[in-house]
């Protein structure tokens, strides 16, 4: 009798613990279903829409997320540089290359919790395309790091891992034509503080 009760207890413990724990783990892990990856950049065009998969829906509900709509824009994030190493705030990166057509776009660095990394004392922590200098072939070259740099500079402060977030507003690439054919700038490490 006691043995049966114990076995039932084991079954319930495995079922509830394993089931709840696996959901918690799946929502914490950043690898999403339905991701579009271009170079180092990843976007989730379906997150926060009725077409999203159940995992994305559960994640946006538990985080209280209100995502950008198709007519508003699309957001790409990058956690690694072109060598596959994690982006760090104590390093300087060059974000270089062509950008797709959009009314305007913004670039900022986020910490692990998704908060914006401040740009230091007198510097905004974000850049937008109306304030950038472009190269002759209409591509951009932005230096992202702690140390001031000529040309375009995205100021970053602090230490630790970071995510670069590139958001295009009012852009045809957010519509159903697919974000997969788009070319985005590459992220090249220029150097690190020792």
């Amino acid at each position, binding site marked *: 009798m006691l043995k049966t009760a114990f076995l039932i207890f084991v079954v319930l413990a495995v079922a509830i613990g394993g*089931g709840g724990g696996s959901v918690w783990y*799946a929502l914490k892990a950043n690898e999403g279903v339905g991701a579009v990856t271009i170079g180092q950049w990843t976007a989730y065009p379906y997150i926060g829409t009725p077409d999203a998969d159940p995992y994305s*829906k559960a994640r946006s509900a538990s985080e*209280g997320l209100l995502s950008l709509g198709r007519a508003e824009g699309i957001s790409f994030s990058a956690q690694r540089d072109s060598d596959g190493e994690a982006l760090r705030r104590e390093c300087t990166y060059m974000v270089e290359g062509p950008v797709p057509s959009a009314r305007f776009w913004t670039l900022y660095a986020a910490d692990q919790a998704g908060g914006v990394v401040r740009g230091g004392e007198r510097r905004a922590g974000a850049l937008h395309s109306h304030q950038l200098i472009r190269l002759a072939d209409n591509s951009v070259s932005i230096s992202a790091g702690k140390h001031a740099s000529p040309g375009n500079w995205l100021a970053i402060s602090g230490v630790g891992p970071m995510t670069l977030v590139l958001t295009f507003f009012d852009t045809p690439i957010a519509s159903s034509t697919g974000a997969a054919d788009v070319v985005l700038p590459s992220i090249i490490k220029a150097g690190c503080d020792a």
Partner: protein
Amino acid sequence: MLRLFYVLLVGLIGAGLVHIAVLLMLPQFSERDAWSSLAEAADVYKAVRIDASDGSPPLVKAVDPLFHAAACRFDLDEAPVHIRAPGNVPYWSVSIYNRAGENVYSFNDRATEKGALDFVVLTSAQMIEVRKAMPEDYKRAIFVQVPLGDGIVLVRSFVPDPTWEEATSNFLARIACSKD
């Protein structure tokens, strides 16, 4: 031994069922979703700023650092909701979310004449009623038909540099979110 294996197998099948059940129920029962956060901050039909203007954490994770945003909740079962704001800002966009925080419709200032923010959210049945006798108020409005009861309207406004802060803050502060 075989019995223990059997018990673990039943446990794992149970874990699979619990996993699916929790996953599907989470959006319905979450108390941290956008709707709940907004409900704590303001009443229905009351527009509230959701970005971290004073450095506090944002009410809802939705906003780019170069944007200001305001949201209001509405209930189409009562009446259509009319959203207006006077003033000119460099760029604004609007998203309409359902109760679960899913984006069902969005548009930006290029969708309107002269970029004025003036639109009505309503259901198809209410649209038929409005067509019969167009209220004077609705003459210049954009009509957005959505199959919703409860919902959220979110207005985002671009702040190109700090000199625009005041203008966009005023623009968002004057958003009127009313059921007529």
